[in-house]
């Protein structure tokens, strides 16, 4: 186990290094993004530009610039945004992360529960009209773009039906920290949770159904039935358990991607000040320090999530456990 963790940490560092170098190079290879322009204010004199370049280290060699940026990001933690010099990048991420966590955790719980239920139900109801119907619903869920669904939800819950008892409880867009008011935190996030999870419920339900149907023809399922096990237990203990392997590996990566900033569209639509929104803004203004920080943050979670998936994998399937 210790060896596994060490190996994973080395992998993490390698991934982070590669990805930061890549982002750095892409940024400077992109034409028209000289940060001096935005840093030096309007109509700068050549002297001001030179001073600014020197102040931000932009007159140094590219490898030096990279190292400097990494140092300010990880060691002195005083990297500032190119666009807004009052914005310290590290604290900005630290304050945006809990918002993203709140959004993604809640959505993940919803999508796990509902996709498993839908997948199981489709298999139980195989041969009836309900199975194809459920799968069509799942496909519709997958096909709806999250930003569109989010806007429609906003339209319904904030405007058209807000006056009715159905959605009068929905608070205005925005975020309330869990530590400040748990109930308001919950209320603010309910609609975003469901909006974000719809795609994943549909997708995971379809994957799970396909896996369950594959597993149904396995000999050990027949053995379980031959023992006299009730059908419900055959389904849950023997079929679901082995079908969860694909499910878990997909989940790990999707979860990592979302926590790492992939919930961007949902955050923007619902006005949640999370990492996704930070990424979105920095991309719009080509703000390298913030892009760099959010990319590192995202890569970190994706790598961690894939390591966790491997651990869980070994728990689910004893055949791949190290001896």
């Amino acid at each position, binding site marked *: 186990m210790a060896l596994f963790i060490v190996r994973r940490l080395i992998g993490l560092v390698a991934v982070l290094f590669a990805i930061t170098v890549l982002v750095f190079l892409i940024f400077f290879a992109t034409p028209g993004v000289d940060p001096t322009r935005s840093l030096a204010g309007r109509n700068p004199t050549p002297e001001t530009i030179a001073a600014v370049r020197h102040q931000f280290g932009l007159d140094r060699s590219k490898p030096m610039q990279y190292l400097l940026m990494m140092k300010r990001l990880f060691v002195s933690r005083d990297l500032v945004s190119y666009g807004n010099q009052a914005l310290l990048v590290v604290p900005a991420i630290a304050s945006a992360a809990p918002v993203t966590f709140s959004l993604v955790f809640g959505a993940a719980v919803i999508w796990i529960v509902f996709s498993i239920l839908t997948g199981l139900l489709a298999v139980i109801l195989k041969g009836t009209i309900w199975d194809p119907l459920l799968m069509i619903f799942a496909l519709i869920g997958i096909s709806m773009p999250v930003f569109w669904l989010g806007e429609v939800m906003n339209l319904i819950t904030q405007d058209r039906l807000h006056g009715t008892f159905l959605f009068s409880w929905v608070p205005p867009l925005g975020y309330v920290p869990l530590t400040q008011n748990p109930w308001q935190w919950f209320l603010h996030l309910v609609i975003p949770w469901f909006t974000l999870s719809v795609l994943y419920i549909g997708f995971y339900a379809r994957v799970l159904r396909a896996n369950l149907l594959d597993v149904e023809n396995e000999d050990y399922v027949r053995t379980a039935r*031959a023992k006299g096990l009730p059908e419900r237990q055959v389904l849950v203990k023997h079929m679901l358990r082995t079908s969860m392997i694909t499910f878990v590996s997909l989940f790990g990566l999707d979860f990592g991607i979302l926590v790492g900033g992939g919930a961007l569209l949902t955050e923007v639509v619902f006005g949640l000040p999370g990492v996704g929104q930070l990424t979105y803004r920095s991309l719009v203004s080509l703000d390298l320090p913030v892009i760099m920080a959010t990319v590192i943050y995202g890569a970190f979670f994706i790598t961690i999530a894939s390591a966790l998936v491997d651990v869980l994998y070994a728990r689910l*399937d*004893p055949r791949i456990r190290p001896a």
Partner: protein
Amino acid sequence: MAEPLLEVKDLKVSFRTEDGVVRAVDGVSFAVGQGEVLGIVGESGSGKSVSMLSVLRLINDPNMQVEGEVIYKGRDLMKLHKDEMRQVRGAEIAMIFQDPMTSLNPVYKVGDQIIEAILIHQDIGKPGARRRAIELLHQVGIPSAEARVDDFPHQFSGGMRQRAMIAMALANNPDILIADEPTTALDVTIQAQIIELIDKLKDEFNSAIILITHDLGVVAEIANEIVVMYAGRVVERAPTRQLFYDPQHPYTWGLLGSIPRLDRPKLERLHSIEGTPPSLISLPEGCKFRPRCPHAFDKCTEEPELRNRVEEHAHLDRCWLTVPDKRRLREETISGEEAA
């Protein structure tokens, strides 16, 4: 035979497919009494496994149709409610399968899978079930069963897995153990051990055994009665000795001729039955073995019924040849290539 424990009467199993109706089992009857061993022999696709799986109602195919009766202790299993059927499975009639590599769930410990089987039908608590599982593993010859009970299936060899499957099947002292080609996937040396084990446990547990195989040699030692199946039908049914010494159906001769024997002169090649089994969708007219039978004649275009034609009344067969003709012709098939 006294009152049979399990009696299958005119079992018919068919599947609707895109190409037509597959008659996998067509009018099969047999019976097994307490403590007896019934061998069911035939090629792949002759309907052996399908008939056994449908006895336990383990085929979940919406395109399947089953007819006939399966009388077990006075009840027709085909008519039981699915919950009652569940009480029969594992507790009264247990089954082990062909491929021990895939018949155990890879994600649970071997012991836990046996414990599960025990706890479905017996209310003895988890510690009690665990003790029983260890005892069972010990009985089927797993060395250091106390430690191996916590192994996962992939840590067992093929032979050990089949032993574990047998332990699981015997966990609730079933009246009948159905073994569906239990040795096909195993090494030859292991095969003999498994068959011996089944034979030994039959006495210890006083269970009846239905042993399905495509190898007559496997059942020769332990079966009381043998049913030979071909194309979903029983073509011959006789007490074991009778079947080996006075086989009546040309298909049985073919099977016997394909077993290497030490008490006969060594042949260049073993006999093989020409051709392949017929398609179960479009079966030949008359006797189903006719296209492959070297002794077929005019009358064979009409299907013979399964009935007694020799002195021994328990010996049934489906062949139009006269008994003296059969006795003359079969020697050539069984003992020599020259007949073919």
